[in-house]
């Protein structure tokens, strides 16, 4: 009566070898369908050449060295053949299978998330009554969230990997011929920028350096405000209106852009933005765009954030001669 067969003999057979079996360089794979019997000796396989071996093949059981660690008793040899040999071959195929599927970790994660959804720096109802909680809830929770998830899904099968969000936008903009990832990436950034451009009890006048710069570049704050409002009203369709620091001209300016485009595409530094897509104001203001824009200007825009952004932008753009005190 033969000793009980080891468990691994009943496991499914390994996948077929990647080289066709009749190929002269193909290693003689030991299949478990036909365990070795002592009457038939296997032909010794040639050592596989590294360059021809499939990329995922690892350590093959070396028949020529006939390694035997004495894992199995010799009692079963008569009936099952060289169990040790078969065990190591089977173990090799396990590695083979794991490597072929791309490792164990990828097996359990379907999507690799690259970018996350940032939270507005205030509660959802903090901008009432100028932007209702319902609007912020939908705008951030649905629209912004959908852009993030859409971007991650696109990136799962895209060569654009390992960029920061700003780099990704520049890369995907492709100098005016945007790739499919551009819209999602740009909108993720734009909305993050927009939430931070607002604050509860915002609006009013900026202070200090920012006010000086605005007065220098627009004439007066009132001029700037009028220009911002009129630029926003001149935008036809969906888009954004920006207070931007132009790198080449070294001055603040108001621009409007369509759909998802931002001044990053032109190499300028955005300082504040207003979302003029209809989803940003339709629930609160219906078709009254002008009131939405004036409310933003008077009650929502965060001059503190603008000041911080200007401070950072000054390290990239020389806005004028520094005031070096003479001793």
């Amino acid at each position: 009566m033969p000793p009980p067969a080891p468990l691994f003999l009943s496991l499914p057979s390994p996948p077929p070898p990647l080289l066709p079996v009749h190929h002269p360089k193909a290693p003689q794979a030991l299949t478990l369908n036909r365990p070795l019997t002592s009457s038939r000796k296997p032909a010794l396989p040639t050592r596989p050449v590294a360059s021809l071996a499939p990329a995922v093949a690892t350590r093959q059981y070396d028949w020529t060295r006939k390694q035997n660690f004495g894992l199995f008793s010799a009692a079963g040899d008569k009936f099952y053949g060289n169990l040790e040999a078969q065990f190591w071959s089977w173990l090799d195929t396990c590695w083979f299978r794991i490597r072929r599927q791309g490792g164990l970790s990828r097996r359990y994660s379907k999507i690799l998330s690259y970018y996350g959804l940032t939270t507005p720096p205030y509660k959802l109802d903090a901008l009432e009554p100028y932007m209702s909680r319902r609007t912020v809830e939908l705008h951030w929770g649905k629209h912004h969230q959908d852009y993030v998830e859409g971007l991650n899904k696109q990136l799962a099968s895209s060569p654009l990997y390992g960029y920061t969000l700003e780099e990704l936008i520049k890369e995907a903009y492709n100098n005016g011929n945007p790739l499919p990832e551009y819209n999602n990436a740009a909108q993720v950034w734009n909305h993050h920028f927009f939430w931070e451009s607002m604050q509860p009890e915002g609006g009013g006048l900026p202070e200090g350096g920012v006010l000086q710069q605005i007065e220098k570049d627009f004439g007066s704050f009132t001029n700037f405000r009028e220009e911002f409002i009129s630029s926003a009203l001149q935008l036809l369709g969906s888009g954004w209106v920006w207070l931007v620091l132009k790198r080449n001209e070294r001055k603040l300016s108001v621009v409007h852009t369509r759909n998802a485009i931002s001044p990053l595409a032109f190499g300028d530094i955005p300082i504040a933005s207003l979302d003029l897509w209809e989803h940003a104001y339709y629930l609160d203001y219906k078709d009254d765009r002008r009131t939405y824009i004036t409310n933003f200007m008077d009650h929502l825009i965060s001059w503190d954030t603008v000041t911080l952004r200007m401070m950072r932008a000054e390290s990239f753009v020389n806005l004028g001669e520094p005031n070096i005190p003479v001793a």
Partner: protein
Amino acid sequence: MALRTLAAKKTLSLALGGARPLAAAARGVTTVALPDLSYDFGALEPAISGEIMRLHHQKHHATYVANYNKALEQLDAAIAKGDASAVVQLQGAIKFNGGGHVNHSIFWKNLKPISEGGGEPPHGKLGWAIDEDFGSFEALVKKMNAEGAALQGSGWVWLALDKEAKKLLVETTANQDPLVTEGASLVPLLGIDVWEHAYYLQYKNVRPDYLNNIWKVMNWKYAGEVYENVLA
């Protein structure tokens, strides 16, 4: 209730479009007027809410009409003066507002209440042409829904007839560009407004739901008539 809305519609359109031509016609500019709907604002429920229809017609379309008339007058003045740069500068406003008026006028005719036959699939020549060019009616609906949902920003999705090639096509245009900007031989049979103002109050951000439901009030009879008139 219906009488009141009808009366309100008529007086508004009279105020906007009716009084204007008398003054402007003296200068030789033919202005446009806000067309009336052939159904109540609330007649397209539950596919499109009455609030959306009222705002869409009375506010958005009316604004396009008013701005288009204004732009036409300015254009007329600029042409008379020979101011070429002003003429060119006005083209943006004319394309946007004029396109908005043209597109929405088609849109109102494309919709019909369910009780009056809205949503009935096309029969006759248009039905056969759809089967020929798209495979089936469902395939056409699926294609238009997919293109409408994928459209970035604001725009329109059209079932267009290429009258030279005698083929049906699905096209999209951005913002308020009329269909002719995609091809001079294209005739619009059906247009779906996928600007957010057309569905946001009811469907919020779920544009695919709006696109699925609007087929229930689609006026295929009008599309069939246009198709047969053009190809006659």
